[in-house]
Every structure is written in structure tokens, then in C-alpha cells.
């Protein structure tokens, strides 16, 4: 009875209805937001999901805990930390290895690379130099991929530290191991440019774009070095190719035509024109310039490749 009386009184109150509306609205909001949250959690979130690297790190951490003197396990763990982006943890593991076995070159390499990633460039140079020195003395140095990687990063870091004279021998060694490393060529070009050897610099930049035709930084390096040499024609070529890589094909044509005026027998400029006209769907002009490039340099691989592609496109258009 008391409850009924209470309800009657409650209902008779002036604001009862409003209060009920607001109460229901609040309850509705709570239910809808709870359901939405639960639904999202249930359908889109999976707690504790671990990537293969995370699992591998866990496993190796266990191995190191079981036998802290196991150098191989520590080195593997350091490598996994590095791969996972935990550079300071990688350095910590390597420091423990180097404390016990100071000649462990693998630990030097991982430490150097980790310092490079952490942008502590002086320490990166220190460890990568130590590693490279040991490996250069090995009989397998000229087939050593890790050494090539170390030399490349050593060269790049020395360039960043404005020590291009020191970078040059390291990058030259890197290219002896892998003569197709366009990044090493570019860094070597930069080092030559900074040591006032623009002719040697542009040679490296040209080599780099032979392997990577859209290597924009190499074209920019060419622009700077040819400008230093006051060679307007080749600056125009470099600017043309830079514009081509940026997708500004009409601009690239203007520059490349100017380059040809100065260097009418320079095949790469004709290739650049052919490529630009191809992008502008003017296949007939593209073919003419590519044929001209092949007339000058019949072995130009990029021109041969482009000609095949253009003719295939022309055949498709005809059919």
C-alpha cells in the first residue's frame, strides 16, 4: 500500500513526467553506449595479439634468462630488438656481449646501426668503423654483404657529419662489394661534390640513375654539381629529369629540348623526352625520340625497354 501511495504521490507531482523522460533518455544513452562499446570490443579488438617478432623476442628473452652467457642467444635477441625498433635494448644487449667478448663483430654492427637509428652519429661511426675494420681484413671481405651495409651507412653517416673525405674510401669499398648499390653511388657523389670534385660527383650520380631511373636526389645532386661546373646544358637535362620524376612532363620536355640544343648527341636526354611524351600519350613523338636515343646509343637498356613498351601500347591502340 505504501508503495502504491508513493507511486500515486510521485505521479501527481508536477515534474514527474519530465523526470521520467530524462531518466529514460539517460538509461537509453547508457545502454546504447555500453552496447556499442562491447560490440566494438568483441568484433574489432583482440587483446594480447602478438606479431611473430614479438613472439620471437619473448622466446629469445627466455633463452637469455636461462643462460646469460649464451652469446648467440644474446646476439639474436639484440638483432630482434633492432628489427623491432627497440634500439636502446639492442645496444644494451650488445654492450654486455662486448664486455665479455670485445671482438664480437656482430655486436659492433648491431650497436653501430642502432646508434645510427637513434641519430647518435658519432657513436654510430665509432662502432661501424670498428666492425668494418675487422671485416675488411677477412678473406671474404669482397663478398661480405654485412660489410657492404656497414660501409654504406658509415659513408652516409660521415657525410651527415660533414666528413666527406673520410666517407669516400668507405663508399668506394662498398661499391667494390656491390657495384649496383645506387644509394652508395649517390652518397659517393655527394662526398665528391662536397670535396670540390664535381666531375667525379656527376659521374656517380649518372651511374646511380642508370640503376634507379627515378632517383630524384641523384638528379638534384647533378643540378648542383653541373651548376658548379657552369654546364647549362646538363643542368637543363638534370632539371628535365627531375621534373619528369615529379610528374611535370611538359616542364621536363622544355628542359630536355634545351639540353639537346647544347648536347645533340646525348642519348639520355632523348630517352627522357621519349618517356615524357609517353606519359603525355603522344606515342608517335615518344617513339621518334626513343629511336633517336637508340641511334646514338644502341645499347641503352632504358631506351630499348621503353621502345618495346611504346610499340606495345601503339599496337593496342591500333587494335
Amino acid at each position, binding site marked *: 500500500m505504501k508503495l502504491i501511495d508513493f507511486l500515486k504521490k510521485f505521479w501527481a507531482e508536477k515534474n514527474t*513526467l*519530465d523526470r*521520467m*523522460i530524462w531518466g*529514460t*533518455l539517460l*538509461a*537509453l544513452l547508457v*545502454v*546504447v553506449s*555500453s*552496447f556499442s562499446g*562491447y*560490440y566494438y570490443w*568483441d*568484433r*574489432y579488438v*583482440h587483446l*594480447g*595479439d*602478438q606479431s*611473430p617478432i614479438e*613472439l620471437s623476442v619473448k622466446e629469445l628473452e627466455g633463452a637469455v634468462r636461462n643462460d646469460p652467457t649464451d652469446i648467440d642467444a644474446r646476439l639474436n635477441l639484440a638483432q630482434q630488438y633492432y628489427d623491432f625498433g627497440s634500439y636502446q635494448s639492442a645496444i644494451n644487449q650488445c654492450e654486455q656481449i662486448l664486455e665479455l667478448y670485445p671482438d664480437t663483430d656482430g655486436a659492433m654492427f648491431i650497436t653501430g646501426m642502432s646508434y645510427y637509428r637513434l641519430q647518435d652519429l658519432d657513436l654510430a661511426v665509432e662502432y661501424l668503423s670498428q666492425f668494418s675494420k675487422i671485416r675488411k681484413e677477412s678473406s671474404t671481405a669482397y663478398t661480405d654483404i654485412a660489410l657492404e651495409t656497414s660501409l654504406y651507412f658509415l659513408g652516409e653517416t660521415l657525410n651527415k657529419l660533414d666528413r666527406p673525405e673520410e666517407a669516400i674510401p668507405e663508399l668506394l669499398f662498398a661499391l667494390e662489394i656491390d657495384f649496383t648499390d645506387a644509394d652508395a653511388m649517390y652518397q659517393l657523389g655527394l662526398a665528391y661534390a662536397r670535396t670540390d670534385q664535381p666531375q667525379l660527383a656527376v659521374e656517380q650520380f649518372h651511374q646511380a640513375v642508370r640503376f634507379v631511373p627515378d632517383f630524384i636526389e641523384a638528379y638534384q645532386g647533378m643540378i648542383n654539381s653541373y651548376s658548379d661546373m657552369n654546364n647549362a646544358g646538363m643542368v637543363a637535362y638534370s632539371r628535365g629529369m627531375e621534373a619528369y620524376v615529379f610528374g611535370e612532363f611538359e616542364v621536363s620536355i622544355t628542359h630536355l629540348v634545351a639540353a639537346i640544343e647544347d648536347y645533340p648527341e646525348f642519348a639520355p636526354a632523348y630517352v627522357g623526352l621519349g618517356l615524357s611524351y609517353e606519359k603525355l600519350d603522344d606515342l608517335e613523338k615518344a617513339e621518334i625520340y626513343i629511336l633517336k636515343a637508340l641511334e646514338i646509343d644502341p645499347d641503352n637498356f632504358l631506351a630499348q625497354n621503353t621502345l618495346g613498351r611504346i610499340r606495345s601500347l601503339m599496337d593496342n591502340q591500333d587494335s
Partner: protein
Amino acid sequence: MSQNNEDNMEEKEDPILEDSIVISEEAEEALAEIQEEGNRKKRMWLLLLLLLLLLCSCGLFVRYLVQPEPLPDIILPFTGPGSELSYPPHYLFSIYGLSQPVGVTLSPDEQLIYVSESGDERLIKVFDRSGNPVNSFAPPDTTQGYRSPVYMDTDDQGQLYVTDRLQHSIVIYSREGKYLDSILGTDLLLSEFIAKHIQGNMPEEITFSYNIITRELKYKLQEDGEEFSLPDPDPAVWAPLGLWINKNNDVFITDVFEGQHRVLTFKNLNKVKFGRGEDFDPKPRSFGASGQNAGEFLYPNKVVVDSQGRYYVSDGNNGRISVWGDEFLYQFGRGTGDGALSLPRGLMIDDRDRLYVVDAVDHAVKVYDVSGDEPIFLFKFGNLGIDDGLFNFPNDIAIDSTGRLYITDRENQRIQVWSY
């Protein structure tokens, strides 16, 4: 005179004016009451509407907690073939710790995930729903060189049936992974063969094993007892590959024995007491033959049946899905475009008659609506790669009632779990 008249007029008009004022106040009160009543009614309707919404939301929440299905599937009724409900699932997570997984299935309560490996130890590995390892097992007395588990499924009792490409048999395990028996042919169980030779009832404690490659058939009457050998049965004339079990516990198998590619269907296999030496003569229905013509198969990988009783066979090396009723009906999947198939392998069908085809070479899962007279390609998901959500030679698929999909990603050494 005129002044008097005006005074008289005023005298006459005043009471009327007063009356009208009184009436107007009453009217206003009445009007206010009416308005108040109108407002109250409006608010009552609003309250009712909110209460209804609250009730619906609570009902929906409880419905989802009891049977978690994708929200669109709960809210919108299925409207027929090619319904707008066709939306692709999203990647959820991966289960690692596997070596070249090929087959996947779920326990009847959907709490366990069984995965068969084709690399390393070639085990059946068991994971819980969150992807934590639970157990692993293999046929007794075999090493990895003598076994190759592929497709599998569970019956309503939780018994696991696994086809083995090297052993040319279907191996039966309990839910926990205890070896129970092997189906050595369309009319022969290993326990049945042993029971005939020992000429008596099979003791409860008997253990036995058979390796078709080494041709060693051994049994022990007691766990610690003497081991006996038997001459092995006649060579199997079948090579079971695909295996699927429907809700009635009928088992559908693809047989890829040389020159004898076909589909076999066994009725109510769960009624057989495996491991007890019972006579086994289920007289399966068989259809199809080896070849490339319509109605023929080249390495049929799996077979599933839709709600209308039509069989869908992933005709692997013919790059198509073959559809059968009592006779061959039609085939689809050849040609070009998103819906075209390259190397269809794993198959699965859900309650809405959506057919999931795992295309191993296209590194994707292709989904068709087969509820109508003709299949309608809905969408595909996946692409070649190693990142989350990308596949590298996927092989098989399992689906649970909550809308989760488990896909074996063979060369990425994982099971990918997707969800609607």
C-alpha cells in the same frame, strides 16, 4: 443630451465589458489547461517512445550476449539472393606457432580450433578461441614422413575426422585428441579389421596402430601388455582428401585416388562406435569421375552442401566449382574478373548460403551467394603479402556462428582470424 447619452452608454457597456473580461480569463485558464494536457500527452508519447527504444536496445544487447552475430545480420532480415547485406569481413588477429597449416575446423561448441600442418612435424594443433595453444597430436606410431593431415571436421559429439594424404585414410580422434580409429576404405575400419582377426570382443584397454607405408599393423590388448602384429589389410583403393560434416553428421569426402576422382557421402557416421570393432558398411553415395569435362573432377578439394541440398565441389585443378544435385547441375568460376577462380581449395558455406571459396593461387577468399538459382559473386577479400590481412597461399576456411572466419595462411605459417 449627447453627454447624457454617452454616460448612459458607458453605464450600459461596463457590465458587458466586465463579463467579457471574466469570460476571457476563464477561457484562458481553460485554454492553458488544454495546452497543458496537450503537452502532457506529447510528453507521454515521447516517454513511451523512449521506453520502447530502451526496451529494444536492451533486447538487442541481451540477444547479442546470448548469440553474438554481426549487428546487420540481427537487425535486417535476409532479403534473398544478392541481398545488400553482402559486406566483407575485417581482419581481427592471427594465430602463430604453426608450420605450413593447411586444414582448419572448429569443435562443435566453437571453443577449440583444430589446425593441420603440412610442414615440420605435421601435427594437428589445437588452439582456444583466443589463439592460445592447447594441445597437439598425431596418429600413433607415425613420424612426420609417414603422415600428412589435410582437411578435417568434427561431428556433433566432438569427434575429429582428419584425412591423411600419405596414409590414405581418415583418422578419428576424440575431442581431446585421443586416437580412436582409422577409416581405411569405404567399408573398412581399422578396429573392425583387428576385431575380425582376434576373433572376439575388443577389450576396453586395447590400443592399436597401422602405418600404411611401413605396412605395420600392431595392437596391444592391454596398455602394458604384449604387442602383437597382424598382416596388413588389402591396399586401400581410395585417397580421401576433402572432408566436411553437415549438421546431420553426414560426412562428405572427396576422393583423389589415381584415375578415380569423385565425391563420397556417408550418412550418420557419428552413430558408428569407433575403436570398438564394429562392422562398418555405410554404403556411401558416390558421384563424379576424373577429367576436365563438365561433371568431371581434377583434384576435388572439398565439398559442402547448401540449404537446398545442392553439392558444391571445389574442383581444384580444373579451377572451378562444380554444382550437383542428384545429377550434375552446372559449374562456375572459370573466366576472368574478381569472381573467377584460379585454384579453389577450401570451401565453406554459412547459414545464409554464402559460399566461401579459398583461392590458393589468387591469395584470396571469394564469396558467392548461392541461395538463388544461380550463384552471385558478392566480394573477395585478401591479397598476396605477409602483412596482417594478406595471404600467401591460403588453403582452408572455417566459420563460426558469431561471424568469425578462420583461414589457413599456409606460407605465412599462421591462421588468420577475420570477423564480420
